[in-house]
């Protein structure tokens, strides 16, 4: 029988990862060391998914690097992959790209947003001027130089970047999928608009009444699924909730750097085993990190 009740969209992190299949195109929201949907990313790695096309953030962080290191990624699309001072260039991104094991679709930030906008607008491409005169069209042959039919100016056509499932992390959402970011939300909205489905991990599920009390704060309405994941961006920050766990990020960087510098995968395999493969849930992962560490990540 058809339910007459409004549908709630809260699902578990396992269910969320179960909606991702080998070969899909996913996007990962956030920016550098903040706001990545790690509770679901860890499950994707645990499910040993393969051949993903990953559209990272305009400045992707080491969560994208981790997915590459775990062997889940065939193609990466991100204008930069960096942990800022913790790792200026993602070590596994470097390793895989330098060995020709990773397809890198090179785009500058605003070409990237034009591609996402084209997908959102159901257009094959959108024009952009940044990159004219550079090597971008040589290293990314999907970009086409053309002359604007109105003025004749030389421009680049940026093809649409379609996303199967957009994954992102936010401060809060209600059970119906109304998302309220704390802060700007970085480029998360552009991922949502270019995606068939959006799954958001949140530090807190809030009642619908709280959304209605301040609807101006709703940054994305009606996403497809919400995952309740307090500290769900760990080891990355979540604005208004907690700061990045630099100690843990360094643990990852050190393991990944052993692969890059010495070809030694053992520390990275141990890291994946301990934090990705063994914990069966987000709660078990947080157990591994420990209360003391988690509670030390306060914002001020």
């Amino acid at each position: 029988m058809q339910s007459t009740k409004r549908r709630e969209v809260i699902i578990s992190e396992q269910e969320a990862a179960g909606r991702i299949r080998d070969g899909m195109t996913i996007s990962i929201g956030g920016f550098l060391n903040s706001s990545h949907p790690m509770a679901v990313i860890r499950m994707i790695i645990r499910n040993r998914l393969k051949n993903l096309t990953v559209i990272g953030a305009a400045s992707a962080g080491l969560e994208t690097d981790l997915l590459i290191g775990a062997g889940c990624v065939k193609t990466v699309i991100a204008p930069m992959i960096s942990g800022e001072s913790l790792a200026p260039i993602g070590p596994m991104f470097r390793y895989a790209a330098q060995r020709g094991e990773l397809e890198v679709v090179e785009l500058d930030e605003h070409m990237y947003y034009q591609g996402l906008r084209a997908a959102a607008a159901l257009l094959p491409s959108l024009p952009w001027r940044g990159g004219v005169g550079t090597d971008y069209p040589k290293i990314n042959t999907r970009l086409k130089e053309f002359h604007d039919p109105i003025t004749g100016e030389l421009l680049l056509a940026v093809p649409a970047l379609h996303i199967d499932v957009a994954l992102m992390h936010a401060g809060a959402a209600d059970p119906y999928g109304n998302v309220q970011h704390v802060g700007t939300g970085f480029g998360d909205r552009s991922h949502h608009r270019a995606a068939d489905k959006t799954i958001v991990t949140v530090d807190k599920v809030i009642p619908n009444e709280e959304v209605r009390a301040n609807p101006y704060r709703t940054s994305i309405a009606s996403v497809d699924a919400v995952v309740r994941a307090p500290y769900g961006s760990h080891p990355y920050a979540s604005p208004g909730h907690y700061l990045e766990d630099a100690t843990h990020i360094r643990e990852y960087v050190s393991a990944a750097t052993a692969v890059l510098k010495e070809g030694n995968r053992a520390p990275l395999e141990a890291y994946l085993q301990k934090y990705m493969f063994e914990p069966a849930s987000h709660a078990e992962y947080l157990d591994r990190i420990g209360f003391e560490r988690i509670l030390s990540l306060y914002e001020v």
Partner: protein
Amino acid sequence: MAALTNVATEYTTKELMAAFVASEIEDGEAVSVGASLPVCRAGILLAHLTHAPNLKVQMSFTMTNLRNVEVLESFEYITDWRAARWAEFFYAHDTGPDLYKRRRKAVFFIGGLQIDAHGNTNLIGIGSDFTRLKMRGPGGVGTASMGTNVGRYYLYANNHNKQTLTERLDWRSCFGFGEGGADARTKLGLPGSGPRFCITPLCIFDFEEQTKRMRLKSVHPGITVEQVLASTGFTPAVPDHVPTTAPPTAEQIQLLRSRIDVEGVLRRP
């Protein structure tokens, strides 16, 4: 501007570079304060606290005015939302492509793995085969678009050596003046005026008007022209007389150390 009679007696190279950056910023301009170029951040804020009270400061996805903030603590990561305590406005990052009309007079800073004699830059990587780079770089970030469109920008080199300052790039991720020539940018229809100067720990380069090739504009105190030439991978134009970069004033150093760079990032070797 404070009179140059009040020259600081003791300062670091990074503080000198920050003071030079400050001297380039005009009141009322819009400028982005990035996290990864602390010297540029300090220079911008130094201008703001001295001669540019109406600077439009973009920081950590906010826009603000910081004149009345006593100590401008620096954040390790650009995503640090504690900058929101100063914010008057915030913008979602994906609105970036829509901001260029308003950035026609904006100022930006661009670094590179490589910077060539015509001010083009490379953040893609080192090596001739793109699918097997010897050193994979971080990626071009927004430099291609910002370099194309913003009013003017400055090249910034953390290190001055032949690997960084090179005659030819392995890959061009941001267009400065291409292969050179006064019309290098206009013939491609690029709206911004391109790189104005290249700021390094040894010197300042500008661009010769006709060739748009780098020319030595000044050497920092204690540095010789010969040292610069020996550390540069291309041959810049060298005028008969090369002046010394103006040292910071005592007031600038006092402001840097007490309000802008309390942590001492610019005083570390």
